[in-house]
């Protein structure tokens, strides 16, 4: 039997915000009945302020999936879309007083439903991402999703990846590929955790580092949401990028750019500015 917190039990037995909001402004859907859990999130959004006035959910899944969904709706209500977009799966888990490791994918599902709803609000049509590389065929988990969740949750083992994304939890054939991805993520995290070297990098080294961060960390996260970017140029401390896919015309584009800038500053220890082409 799973060790659920009282909060999980409470929100499972008496879930809040069940159902659909009338004439929703945003609908987010993730999962499928085949995978064993699915969540449909509907939001009422104030057009002026972009504030979420109401949120409701419908969930097919276990107790922690239902509780995570209910927690998500509680967390987003009253927030602006911009504030809501920063909610992570860890916050959902924390709201519940924690989830068993094996159930963390329920919190990830909540986060994904929210992302999907925000995209939906922005009028971005759900498109099949053609070059999506499906690693886990049992649960249809893409390489980008594994990377994103692994980076954000500091995952280091195949078991953890299965707990958070389900990838590798089925037939197990994709485990070597997941190990490869984890190795890459880890090698990148090692770079990150190394103290910023006092010695100045050569220009070439700095460019390689920036490229590395964009390739291994930023792009997988954007691609997981249907977007992407290209590195156009690096001149001194000015990095020029071109937004691609769903990132083009994304109202949150500026935030994305700002986020990339902060990350590059952190990694290089220099005053980087990021601009779009």
């Amino acid at each position, binding site marked *: 039997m799973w060790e659920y917190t009282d909060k999980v039990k409470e929100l*499972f037995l008496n879930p809040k915000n069940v159902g659909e909001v009338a004439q929703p402004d945003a609908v987010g859907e993730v999962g499928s*009945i085949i995978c064993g859990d*699915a969540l449909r999130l509907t939001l009422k959004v104030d057009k002026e302020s972009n504030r979420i006035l109401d949120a409701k959910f419908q969930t*097919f899944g276990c*107790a922690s*999936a239902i509780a995570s969904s209910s927690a998500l709706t509680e967390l987003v209500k009253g927030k602006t879309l911009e504030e809501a977009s920063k909610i992570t799966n860890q916050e959902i888990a924390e709201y519940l007083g924690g989830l068993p490791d094996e159930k963390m994918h329920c919190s990830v599902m909540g986060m994904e439903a929210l992302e999907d709803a925000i995209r939906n609000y922005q009028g971005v049509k759900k498109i099949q991402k053609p070059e999506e590389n499906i690693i886990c065929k*049992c649960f249809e988990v893409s390489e980008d999703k594994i990377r994103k969740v692994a980076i954000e949750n500091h995952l280091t083992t195949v078991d953890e990846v299965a707990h958070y994304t*389900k990838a590798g939890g*089925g037939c197990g054939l994709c485990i070597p590929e997941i190990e490869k991805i984890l190795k890459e993520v880890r090698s990148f995290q090692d770079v990150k955790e190394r103290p910023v070297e006092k010695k100045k990098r050569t220009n070439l080294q700095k460019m390689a580092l920036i490229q590395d961060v964009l390739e291994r960390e930023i792009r997988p996260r954007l691609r997981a949401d249907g977007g992407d970017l290209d590195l156009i140029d690096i001149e001194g401390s000015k990095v020029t990028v071109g937004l691609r896919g769903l990132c083009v015309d994304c109202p949150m584009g500026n935030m994305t750019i700002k986020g990339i800038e902060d990350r590059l500053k952190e990694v290089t220890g220099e005053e980087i500015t990021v601009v779009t082409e």
Partner: protein
Amino acid sequence: MKTIYLDNNATTQVAPEVLKEMLPYFRDLYGNPSSMHTFGGQVHRKIEEAREQVADLIGAEPDEIIFTGCGTESDNTALMSAAETNPGRKHIITSRVEHSAILNFVKYLEGKGYRTTYLPVDPEGRLDKAAFLKSLDDHTAIVSLMYANNETGVLFPIPEIGDIAKDRGILFHSDAVQALGKIPINVKNLPVDMLSFSGHKLHAPKGIGALYVRKGTRFYPYLIGGHQERGRRAGTENVASIVAFGKACELAKEDLSRGITRVARLRDKLEKALIERCPDAVVNGDKENRLPNTTSISFEYVEGEAILLRLNEFGICASSGSACTSGSLQPSHVLRAMGIPYTAIHGSVRFSLSTYNTESEIDQVIEVMPSIIHDLRSLSPFGRDKFERYLCAAGTGKAD
């Protein structure tokens, strides 16, 4: 809150008579049955009495019964013995719906160079006999097929399979852990070489099992050491539990015919009422050919763990084949092997009754279950009306 225990294929309560019988062997009669003194010797006699009780339930000779630590040990021992006594044969036949005590041991043997045939089952959980006939060859060391399935209760045609294996001179083992005490088993007219049993499935405590080995069957021990169990299972005997197992078998024999009818009637009542009162619910498995105490029901559009935890609020204990309860991310290998759609597997609930269940307990389950299902369905984004867009294989391969 009173517990309504409908998970007897997982484990059972120790019968009060059984508990009474075993207690003195912890406290007063703690001697070692191998000792030369009377104090130990009397314990030895009691073990032999228990052996007779177990043998008596299945029509065996007492010296055909080896006490083991559990059902898993019995299964492992049978396979290991087959491997050791047939060194030239490297092929094993089993099924896709066996217990993990068989499946994972077979995987272990595969690592040692064995080849396995996993026989398929049909959508009702029945063995594919044609596939069985085709799979037999001159390299087959053992055929191991379960007597009754733990999840659906479906029975395999053990006598028929045994006849064929016997004709071909191939060792035949059956994991009868779920069958013992629930249906009559008589090895006198059952062509089987080895049978595995477990005490805690029939009101003896956990930690005691038995392996029936037909006289004349070549045998190689799994635990090697002292001369206990005539050298076939070393280790000081778990005296109290052996005594308990013997008593439980005696009770099972007394209760068998009357008990089956009563339990089957309650099970049928439960099943019928739930199917009637909960729309989109189906029974998994061959209803004509299964254990009298088991029913596996799939409630579509809802997830099993959620059902179990809602039942738990009423003190009702059951189990599910859903992924969330399996300890892995995959739902029940048994229901998948039957080709039950995932939509139905995730919402499967198994009720397994015992002789201790009462009519009023069953009535309580019948009363609360429809509203639990209705409630969870109202939370679900899926349903009969909203189903189309999810492109699921609803309505195919249903086993009822």
